[in-house]
């Protein structure tokens, strides 16, 4: 079992994440899709780090996990705020500024 397996899993995760974000049913789904994308990238990083060489990938993965947490925290806070203002967490519901 080599690098290819990890890459395939990561690519599937990435595709799922993108699908999740474009479906736009619910902001929480979208945020989960974003997490999937980031985790696909993390999987890639760690796999490449193991098979291609260097610790850079693992360090990158640690940073990316932490950034994902920070981003999720901010995103959830924003979504809470939006829920308070619009009583909805469908990403298409707030549209005060459409022409």
């Amino acid at each position, binding site marked *: 079992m080599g690098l290819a397996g990890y*890459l395939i899993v990561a690519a599937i995760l*990435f595709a799922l*994440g*993108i699908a999740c*974000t474009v479906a736009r049913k619910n*902001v929480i789904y*979208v*945020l989960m*899709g*974003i997490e999937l*994308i*980031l985790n*696909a*990238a993390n999987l*890639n*990083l760690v*796999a*490449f780090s193991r098979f*291609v*060489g*260097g610790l*850079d*990938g693992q*360090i*990158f993965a640690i*940073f*990316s996990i932490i*950034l994902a947490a*920070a*981003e999720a925290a*901010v*995103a959830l806070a*924003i*979504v809470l*705020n*939006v829920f308070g*203002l*619009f009583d909805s967490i469908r*990403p298409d519901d*707030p*549209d*005060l*500024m459409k*022409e």
Partner: protein
Amino acid sequence: MNLLREELSWITPELCLTLFACVALLVDLFVQKGRESVMVGFFSLMGLLATAFFLYRQYGVTPPAQPVFGCMVVDPFSTLFKLFAVGALAFVVLFTMLSRQTRPDGYGEFYFILLCAGLGAFFLASTYNLLLMYLGLELLSIASYILAGYAKGNRRSGEAAMKYVIFGAVASGVMLYGFTLLYGMTGSIDLTVIGPKLRDQFALDHGTIPISVATGLCLAGFAYKISAAPFHFWTPDVYEGAPTPVTTFLAVASKGAGFAALLRFLQAGFIPDRTLGGPEAMMGYSDKLGTLVAVLAALTMTLGNLAALGQTNLKRMLAYSSIAHAGYVLMGVATMNREGFSSVLFYLVVYYFMNLGAFGVVMYYANTTGDEQIDDLKGLGWRSPLVAITMVAFLVALVGLPPTAGFIGKWFLFTAAVKKGFLWLAVVAGINSAISLFYYFRVARAMWLRPEEEAKYATVHASPAFAALLLVLAVGTVWFGVGFDSLLRYCDYSQNLLR
């Protein structure tokens, strides 16, 4: 330990900004309520001044490229963009203090987040390291999400923040995935190593599909940051909904930092050293990439300009105009040569003056009327002539007409594109500039029209501080259109990426 001190001395501006940001947060916490906003604002200004001082001192002694801690690089290019960011931040802080929209209490943390965003821009401008580039981008982005939604209780602001965070997080995630693929292909996260490794791979002739996929994913992230098509959809809503000082920050500092990172990314990774020569395949790929960017540029400016035509809200119109301007600047990026990159720097500096000015006027206008509709501008020229005259200067510069700096900046971009052989692109840009004349002119006309009902708004004169800010920006806009020699030399010197 000495080595550590030596390296630390190169990042004094970053350290200074970090220190001031942290202390600003503490000041906000421990100062009596009700006065903290103003105090923290002044404190941030002091911090920015100190940072600018360190940057200026560094500028005189900067070597061609000083590596720091193996992941940052200090060179004239980074210093230019850092000065750019500090200047923009200073104006944004001043705008925030003067804007009525952001004047209520509880704006202490606002400045802290603003400084953090500036720090992100600093990192973005001075690194070849993919990890630090991603960190800088995220620091800038996350701070921007918060800033966009800062007007709590304002539904538009909330909507803007949500749209921004969804779009931004997806785009940066996609870019991260692209980074990992580059890392996988080359085994390094340093662009200066990735470039030569990619050259070797091109020499092996494995085909360009994997590299194309990786580059495309990375470019998506950059395109989002500079709001270029097809990743510009967030721009109008976010620019309109966010508090005006924040919009100014996004349009100027954030976009500038995005361009800095994009230029570095392309230069280190994908532009072969012409003197050394590279494998045929890499030369071809580099040219193809240039053509792709050229197509994106044409698309971006056309979409931006066409959409701007029908806008009734001034801020939203300026948002579309800023998309169009991203297209013009991409024209210089597409050349992938020294002249083009220099013209990009020049145009960004010019853009800084005219856009800060235009958004400043929007803010003044919203202060007096509480709205941003173009039709309500009627009679502004008679009510407050100074503001209207500066606005005309900014508008003329945005169209790109002489004698303003906008004309000179566009001139350099056009010549760079034509020399590279993108004649069609220059023609498209020319047509676009003509289109843009319509919507900018509409604003100018509205300002000088006699309003039917004279006393709809009481005459509100711009406060002296605000008038001074606008005057500085207007003078800069016009000055660099006439005496542009020094700025041109400075930009050429700072453009040390391609020689």
